[in-house]
């Protein structure tokens, strides 16, 4: 009987054919860690008195959550560095970028891989056709020690998208639209496969955005089957030995949904739920005082280019603080080279260190004051997420955020397309 992508990947890693509901004991191809887990998996191994880990060559560390804001966090960073160096573990230090960007950028993920990490947005790597899911620190520590973890094989949901995204409407709008329809737990415990002509038209930056938000509908994994675009992206990085894994034509899905996104409007998630999604027209005119383009959802070159298209030659409203945080050093170099960064800075953007700053309140950046409304390209708008429970967070695409900075209120980016 035909298999879904999730069943194939987990079966390959369990060494046997698997069915949904079964527990698979699997050896991940990649276990990554960042610096934000408390307790950190390395600390847990220290406390167990463990020196050896099973496969140091399958482990990657990225220090991304905050550029060393306090002495105690600096201590955690040093512990991570010492542990990594002693075992020959690849480590990317502060300023390299957000793990979810650095891992694919540096060639650590391939289609068909099994990736785990102590972060819910690990699902981002589904854009490459990997089964990538978040787990906790203890799970990561156990996987580092034993080389294995257990995963219950999920059922799969298939989403088929037709139509072409209209001008001014982007991958983030698509992600919000889907989450609005599925709800915060609409895909809990499921692996989602996103297919269709509309998906084929998304570039890799856009695919990473959509897969990144998979967890916000509860998905265990969120996968875009690899295609010519995926293979081309790898070829650009001189990686040609990638094997695209596809679902079988007779694979069984718990549900299949079709959407035509040819008429999609820019989408906005209202405070304080990611699945409370409306078309931008519904909130146009809502005053905002702070805006952020960044985070693992939207901090790639295509995101900043979309924002620059709106902001080039214009100025951010005097009452708005507009932060931009390139997701990696590679992204920063890219947008510095083609005039994108220059256009955004000329408009009045405030730039942050490549990394997670600007996302959560603990990353010491862009905390709003009481009563303020902000709009961001981040993936969550739970009350208090950016450091102040008395502020409100709207989510949107980079273009929507950029348009909103011009006016000091939520604005439709389609008015700024020329």
């Amino acid at each position, binding site marked *: 009987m035909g298999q879904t992508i999730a069943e194939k990947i987990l079966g390959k890693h369990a060494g046997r054919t698997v069915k949904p509901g079964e527990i698979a004991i699997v050896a991940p191809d990649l276990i990554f860690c960042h610096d934000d*887990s408390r307790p950190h998996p390395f600390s847990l191994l220290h406390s167990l008195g463990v020196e050896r880990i099973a496969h140091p060559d399958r482990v990657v560390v990225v220090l991304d959550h*905050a550029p060393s804001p306090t002495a105690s966090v600096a201590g955690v960073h040093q512990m991570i560095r010492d542990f990594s160096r002693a075992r020959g573990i690849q480590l990317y230090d502060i300023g390299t970028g957000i793990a979810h960007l650095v891992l694919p950028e540096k060639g650590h993920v391939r289609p068909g891989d099994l990736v785990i990490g102590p972060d*819910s947005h690990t699902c981002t790597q589904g854009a490459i056709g990997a089964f990538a899911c978040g787990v*906790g620190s*203890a799970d990561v520590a156990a996987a580092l020690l034993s080389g294995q973890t257990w995963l219950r094989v999920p059922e799969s949901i298939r989403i088929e998208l037709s139509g072409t995204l209209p001008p001014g409407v982007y991958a983030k709008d698509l992600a919000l639209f889907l989450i609005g329809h599925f709800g*915060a*737990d609409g895909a809990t415990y499921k692996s989602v496969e996103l297919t269709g002509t509309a998906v084929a038209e998304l570039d890799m930056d856009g695919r990473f955005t959509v897969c990144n938000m998979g967890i916000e509908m509860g998905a265990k994994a969120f996968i875009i089957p690899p295609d010519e675009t995926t293979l081309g992206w790898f070829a650009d990085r001189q990686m040609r030995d990638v094997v695209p894994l596809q679902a079988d034509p007779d694979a069984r899905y718990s549900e299949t949904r079709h959407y035509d996104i040819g008429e999609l409007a820019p989408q906005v998630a209202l405070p304080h739920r990611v699945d409370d999604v409306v078309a931008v027209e519904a909130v146009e005119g809502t005053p905002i005082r702070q805006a952020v383009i960044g985070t693992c959802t939207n901090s790639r070159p295509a995101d900043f280019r979309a924002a620059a298209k709106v902001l080039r030659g214009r100025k951010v409203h005097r009452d708005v603080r507009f932060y931009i945080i390139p997701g990696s050093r590679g992204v920063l170099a890219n947008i510095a080279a083609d005039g994108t960064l220059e256009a955004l800075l000329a408009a009045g953007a405030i730039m942050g260190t490549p990394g997670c700053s600007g996302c959560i309140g*603990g990353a010491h950046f862009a905390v709003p004051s009481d009563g303020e409304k902000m709009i961001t390209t981040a993936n969550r708008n*739970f009350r208090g*997420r950016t450091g102040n429970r008395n502020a409100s967070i709207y989510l949107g695409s980079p273009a929507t955020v950029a348009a909103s900075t011009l006016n000091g209120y939520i604005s439709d980016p389609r008015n700024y397309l020329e």
Partner: protein
Amino acid sequence: MKIAGKIHVLGDDINTDYIISSKYKSTILDLDELAQHVLEDYDPDFAGRLNPGDIVAAGNNFGCGSARETAPLVLKRAGVAAVIARSFARIFFRNAHNVGLPIIEFDTRALENGDQLELDLVAGCLVNHTQGKEATFSAPPAEMLAILKAGGLLEYYRHYHHFPWT
């Protein structure tokens, strides 16, 4: 494994940022200090009302959001003896077991704030002493129960020198 306590009823989609605000998670390393802020952004008075041994009863999708273990750790350190909910987000489900916080899937709609409950995790029985009712739930599988009894996944490893699946 039996747990008895008074319940605090919460709603649906209690996310990890509500359980412990992001602004503390990265920089406060002390669990006792973090525990003082449990559920603060959802209900600033909750920590003050919670007594050790109390049980949290919630709706759907409890623990959605982050993969950080901080959420179940803070609940446990604040004294929550167990969480029962109509459904759990999957990463929270794993993490709760891994840190030794008992969780049970159960239709909580008939429960009321302040009910005195008694839970038997081996038998899968729930007694509501306040309402005078009994009900059953799916008891955790043997391996999960063993992890909970040990106090968490790594505590299990410390005790048995292997993981439940090896």
